[in-house]
């Protein structure tokens, strides 16, 4: 399995050692505040996030390369905003006016999305997936009508089996290529040829998985998850609330 920007890598840093519940709280609060923030605080926030990412031992250049498809998405968001927001025209492109206000507004939205993406990277790369599951379970516990243990097991199974399903898809694709299936240009036919064996295999695997889980006495009445507070959570929460207030107000 390849390592990417989102892959958890143990670094022993201050952020990594913090309790997952504190990190989830910080991520939620900062994300909400980011949606209201202006350009200047956002740039400051991006700078801070890059410092944290660097502290985690990740290279900024490589990270930006890995986000290339995300930048394409942002480019479309920017384009859509620039072309549809009324205002002072900057220039005309194929009878479509690109407005100054549209560019500014689009740029602000893209910067907000990019900030949230960086926060997600910091969270994912500093948190064990099994702890994410435990954190979600803890936050869902007081919510009525949501079976938090079931949700946690679903997250665990998703994290465990998604790479296996992708690996299976790759094997099926290679088996098709070995019989010159890449000469087929119709994308629908190609998709059907991939989907049928993949779904069949996935359903069979799900059946086996259910039996294996039952044999290990799976039930919703499970032992509660364990957390590992570092003792700095109070300080982190205060800093996050202060930062969120700044983002929200400016």
């Amino acid at each position, binding site marked *: *399995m390849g390592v990417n920007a989102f892959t958890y890598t143990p670094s022993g840093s201050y952020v990594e050692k913090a309790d997952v519940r504190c990190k989830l709280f910080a991520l939620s609060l900062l994300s909400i505040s980011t949606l209201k923030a202006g350009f200047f605080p956002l740039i400051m926030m991006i700078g801070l996030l890059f410092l944290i990412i660097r502290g985690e031992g990740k290279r900024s250049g490589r990270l930006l390369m890995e986000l290339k498809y995300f930048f394409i998405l942002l480019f479309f968001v920017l384009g859509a905003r620039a072309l549809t927001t009324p205002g002072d025209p900057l220039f005309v492109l194929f009878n479509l006016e690109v407005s100054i206000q549209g560019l500014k507004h689009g740029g602000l939205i893209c910067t907000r999305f990019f900030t949230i993406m960086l926060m997600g990277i910091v969270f994912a790369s500093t948190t*064990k*997936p*099994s702890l994410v*599951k435990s954190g979600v379970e803890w936050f869902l516990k007081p919510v009525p009508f949501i079976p938090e243990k079931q949700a946690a097991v679903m997250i*665990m*199974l998703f*994290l*465990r089996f998604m*790479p*296996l399903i992708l690996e299976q898809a790759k094997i099926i694709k290679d088996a098709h290529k070995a019989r010159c299936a890449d000469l087929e240009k119709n994308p629908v036919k190609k998709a059907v040829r991939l989907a049928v064996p993949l779904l069949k295999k996935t359903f069979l*695997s799900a059946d*086996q*998985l259910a*039996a*294996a*889980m*039952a*044999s*290990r*006495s*799976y*039930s919703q*009445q*499970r*032992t*509660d998850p*364990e957390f590992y507070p570092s003792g700095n959570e109070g300080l982190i929460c205060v800093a996050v609330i202060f930062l969120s207030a700044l983002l929200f107000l400016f």
Partner: protein
Amino acid sequence: MPDTRIIETKDLTCIYDGSRSGVFNINLCVSKGEFIIVAGKNGSGKTTLFRLFNALLTPSSGKVLIHGKNSVKHPVFARRTTGMVFQDADMQIVGETVYDDTAFGPENLKLPRKEIHHRVDRALKKIGLFHLKDRNPSTLSGGEKRRLALAGVLSMTPEVIVFDEPFANLDYPGSLELLSCIRDLHASGQTMIIAIHDIEKVISFATRMIIMDNGKIVHDNIPGALLDKLTCYGIRQPAGKGIVPWV
């Protein structure tokens, strides 16, 4: 004398819907400390029998008794007593790390966290995977994955471990690693039942061999008494003369 019987089946029959396959009229008894090989060609009913032991299937007629308790009425008790290692380890491993996966069973039993740590550490040390406890299971070798599946069962402290084709798709080093674990468990007095095609790997440990054919038990005896009957039922005879250790 104390009753050493752990599993007992009485006229056990399980027929799959819309087919003639399954197991028919099985009567057997598994006692403490036994090492039983269940041999037979594909479709002979080995896996079905094991799933019945583990209360994963419901008998069409007859019953499986675990310490005298009907497995259908007490499935959790049956699963705690009879741990099953499946043929495809990838489908049995559910945890994000080796440690998490080994803890899955004890967590389902709602054991206290301290007891879970104790059991997981002990199981991982026993099968030699403790140094890999933080690894993602998908990065393990085939042999290590099979041993992890075994650790997941051991952490539930079953009285009987049931292996369904444990050496399937394993290379030579992986087979050796797993065999070493099985040998150590056997030496510690663990009761085991193994379904296997290639009996030469474990025949030297076996105290009993059951041959299945078309869902029925056709022979049940000490391994030495059944060697000349193997080929009639599509089972390869061990290489060399008599019963000797594989390596």
